[in-house]
């Protein structure tokens, strides 16, 4: 058996094809598993006619939005693909489109399964009255998204590697060098191809996250501000005209948006390691060709091992007798996925690198160095997740303190929440710092990239758990809207509550991995900036005292604030329109509140949809255009500073917004669970203000910043060979 593995893990073309075959089989298996779970959920009874009607309206709204959004993305993507084809290479354009299709497919499938699963989860609770059995249906639905994210991301990247890297030989050691295209631009073709694939994923992620984030929060705030606060009707009450839009928002924001976000992070981490391997080889002539090949495809193998491990974790939860403790069950699936990933990546790394002169690649701990780095990533991801939980869960002091401050009014709720959010930034940054230093000491910059991969290697199971949350949330909404028995609503509410905690932990992973991947991409950027002179060995130094670089850093640090401000304003604009519409409907038709006539749900869906579509364009384009525009004016040094500034500033802002928003949200829930007067108290009113302020921060701004970091790094990496040569400052001498 071991001999067989050793035979497979060789560096001949046949051996590489077999290994990529293994990666493709793993990805296909994940997609097949997703299909089985999809139909497993679909064949379940959706419940009463009323339940089917409600879920149909949610599904229709979600589909309409995603169709509309994808039309916009298609136009933008077409322009980018043409530019890539003309300026970079045809392979880059094809890989870009491929990446965009893979990411869009995952988002689409995720949204579809979520809108199918929600009503079936609700009906399972209705039929069985069992928390465990209902959890299983919700998780099966979530697993479709998780398996699709892992499967599509890896399948696409493996095919890109197989077609362009192996068949067209872009990834052979002799071709991992600079080529000059018809425009006189020099780059390493393979790095451009995989970067373009990552860019395709990033573009979809940016639009899905920004668009979905604006949609979901506009609907949520509109529904809450008028329905709950002014009219006094409870959450998910069918009399609220914005309630269907709110539930649609869960699907387009928290499912499609989150799925493409994590797919992008996953691909970003894999691609950053592959690119770095190419540059390390190019810059250090001492590395053997066989080793460099392995460094390039090792991330794919580790990821494949992670997918298989995640499938075990998912299967474990789907086949075992599920207890009535959803948090424990979901954690068990996640930790099982992580545990098996550690084992599988250890085996793969050992057999892949054993016998190689790994010291030449800067590995300090022999063949297992990349594995040690990956484990550091996994552990630091879990620690960052736990830190996020500490600062955002109402089981701990920080959030309880926000709830307590609410007794003194909304001003102190906001102040205390800001304090918790700001304080919460330090600990994960220290963990990241330790992970970066330790992984770098273990395997150099490649180790840092492997740490990012480790953090996301079991993304399949973490996305499954994350997607379970909005499905359970929607199921709760349907149970309320269909006026199901209180026991049923109790079950779906309990499942929903667990989803809130898992979401906070997931955000910790997303931010951590984005930082590590951005650092790897930034290193590649410096290599690419140096161009062919890298061949003679360079020290990766960014001259921060250069005025252009320093100013780039300053602008970069300010950019996330501009970006975040625009997103918050976009949410506020759309929410304002929603508030006005809900008020108008209540006033125009008193029968709505009496329950004798149905509200006009469609207009509210249209408001959220139109608001998100119109407002998402500029922030998304800023993220792509800023490095290009500044690069062509000020040159590569400025963009280097820009990337550092944006990365540092975004990480802090993303951690702050995610944790402050999460803490405000759970602070409100703590009060609602009967503390400090509970619902209806002045403390509750203040906590609701905090939650409303935090909503766009944690669900729109924070997740979008993760993508901002990587999309800017990838765009810069692709374009640096062009604007490094052709920029206004260089032309002016």
């Amino acid at each position, binding site marked *: 058996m071991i001999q067989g593995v050793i035979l497979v893990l060789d560096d001949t073309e046949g051996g590489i094809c077999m290994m990529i075959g293994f990666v493709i089989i793993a990805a296909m298996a994940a997609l097949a598993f997703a299909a089985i779970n999809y139909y497993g959920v679909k064949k379940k009874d959706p419940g009463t006619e009323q339940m089917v009607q409600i879920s149909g309206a949610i599904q229709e709204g979600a589909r309409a939005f995603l169709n509309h959004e994808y039309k916009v993305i298609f136009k933008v993507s077409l322009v980018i693909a043409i530019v890539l084809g003309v300026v970079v290479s045809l392979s880059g354009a094809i890989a870009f489109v491929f990446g965009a299709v893979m990411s869009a497919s995952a988002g689409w499938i995720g949204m579809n399964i979520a809108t199918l699963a929600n009503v079936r989860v609700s009906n399972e609770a209705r039929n069985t009255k069992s928390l465990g059995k209902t959890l299983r249906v919700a998780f099966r639905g979530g697993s479709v998204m998780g398996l699709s994210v892992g499967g599509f991301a890896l399948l696409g990247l493996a095919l890109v590697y197989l077609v362009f890297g192996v068949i067209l030989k872009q990834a052979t050691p002799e071709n991992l060098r600079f080529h000059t295209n018809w425009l006189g631009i020099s780059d390493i073709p393979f790095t451009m191809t995989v970067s373009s694939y990552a860019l395709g994923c990033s573009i979809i992620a940016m639009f899905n996250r920004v668009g979905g984030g604006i949609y979901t929060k506009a609907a949520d705030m509109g529904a809450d501000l008028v329905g709950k606060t002014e009219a*006094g009707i409870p959450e998910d009450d069918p009399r609220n005209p914005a309630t269907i839009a709110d539930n649609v928002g869960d699907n387009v924001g928290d499912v499609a948006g989150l799925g493409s976000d994590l797919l992008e992070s996953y691909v970003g981490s894999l691609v950053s390691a592959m690119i770095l391997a190419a540059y390390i080889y190019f810059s250090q002539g001492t590395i053997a060709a066989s080793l460099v090949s392995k460094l390039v495809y090792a991330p794919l193998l580790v990821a494949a091992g992670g997918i298989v491990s995640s499938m075990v974790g998912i299967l474990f939860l789907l086949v075992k007798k599920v207890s009535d403790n959803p948090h424990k069950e979901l954690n068990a699936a996640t930790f099982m996925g992580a545990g098996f990933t550690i084992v599988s990546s250890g085996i793969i790394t050992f057999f892949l690198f054993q016998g190689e002169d790994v010291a030449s690649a800067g590995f300090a701990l022999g063949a297992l160095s990349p594995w040690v780095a990956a484990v550091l990533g996994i552990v630091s991801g879990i620690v960052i997740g736990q830190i996020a939980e500490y600062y955002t869960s109402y089981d701990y002091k920080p959030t309880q303190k926000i709830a*307590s401050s609410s007794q003194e009014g909304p001003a102190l709720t906001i102040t205390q929440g800001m304090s918790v959010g700001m304080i919460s930034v330090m600990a994960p940054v220290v963990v990241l710092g330790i992970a970066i230093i330790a992984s770098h000491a273990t395997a150099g910059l490649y180790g840092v990239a492997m740490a990012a991969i480790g953090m996301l290697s079991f993304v399949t199971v973490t996305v499954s758990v994350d997607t379970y949350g909005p499905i359970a949330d929607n199921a709760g909404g349907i149970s309320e809207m269909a006026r199901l028995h209180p026991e049923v609503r109790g079950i779906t509410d309990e499942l929903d509550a667990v989803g809130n905690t898992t979401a906070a932990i997931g955000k910790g992973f997303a931010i951590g991995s984005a930082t590590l991947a951005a650092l790897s991409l930034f290193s590649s950027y410096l290599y690419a900036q140096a161009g062919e002179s890298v061949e003679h060995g360079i020290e990766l130094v960014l001259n921060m005292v250069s005025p252009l670089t320093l100013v780039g850093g300053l602008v970069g640090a300010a950019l996330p604030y501009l970006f975040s401000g625009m997103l918050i304003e976009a949410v506020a604009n759309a929410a304002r329109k929603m508030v006005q519409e809900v008020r108008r409907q*209540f006033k125009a038709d008193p029968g709505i*509140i009496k329950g004798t006539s149905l509200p006009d749900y469609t207009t509210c869906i249209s408001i959220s949809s139109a608001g998100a579509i119109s407002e998402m364009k500029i922030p998304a384009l800023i993220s792509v255009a800023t490095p290009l525009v500044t690069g062509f004016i000020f040159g590569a040094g400025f963009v280097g500073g820009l990337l550092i500034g944006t990365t540092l500033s975004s990480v802090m802002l993303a951690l702050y917004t995610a944790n402050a928003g999460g803490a405000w949200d759970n602070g409100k829930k703590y009060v609602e669970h*009967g*503390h400090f*007067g*509970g619902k*209806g108290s002045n403390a509750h009113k203040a906590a609701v203000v905090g939650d409303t302020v935090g909503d766009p921060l944690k669900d729109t701004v924070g997740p979008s910043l993760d993508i901002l970091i990587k999309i800017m790094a990838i765009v810069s990496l692709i374009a640096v060979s062009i604007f490094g040569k052709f920029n206004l400052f260089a032309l002016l001498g």
Partner: protein
Amino acid sequence: MYYYVVFYPIEALIASQLEPKNFGMYMARGSKKGSAERLMFAEIEGDCSEAFDWEFARSKCVAHANGEPKHSLYLSIYRVIEQIPLEAYKNVYLVNQDGTTLALEAKTYKASTDWKGYGLYKEHCPVHPFIASSLKPKELAAYIISDTGKKITVPAIIFTDIRSIDLEEKEHTGNIGSMFERDLDHLKECIEDVKGQNGKVTKTIDRSFDSKFTYQIIGEGIYIAKGEGILFYPMPNREELKEIDYDWGRSANIFW
């Protein structure tokens, strides 16, 4: 034709063609103005007192030309409950801000077995204070109504007993709204006053507490007393409420 005595937030006798739940919805939400306010009322028999013009009600409380029922015809706006005999009362209705309405049926009065030596009460009609008392509900009503040498009495009263909480444990209160939010020391002093040996039977904690009163803190139920009689409308507990009207409970913030 229905007759309703609204006793919170105003005191009024209203004739209406709307049955109780629709009347509650109408009063809470209005027909056009988009209001959103809580109210409590009781349905009563017509012709139960000579103090009101029932003929006027019958002649004016008729459907509109378009067939729409007459929503409300005010027959009297103060000193209403003193004129209504207890036998005329039917159900009491608690209306949420969103118009959802819970019906409470009168049951035989039973003194609480969980007596701590004092009770907290919210008077709704004819005046609105929040008080502490050393008396149980029936005795309190008799004390307030009967002339025992006191300067002030009322002929009839509607009040609620209030759930008492652990005043030393402010964090884990349960869903009680803002009733116990401020000046707990004053509340404790009032309780000590009525529990003490100085013969003080009642103590006003706050003269008007309407804005802080919520259905979450109703203890045993609602009491309507006149003369020597008392009607008791028990408030369902959480589990009972889940079965009776879960949606009303959610609107009333009783459930999470």
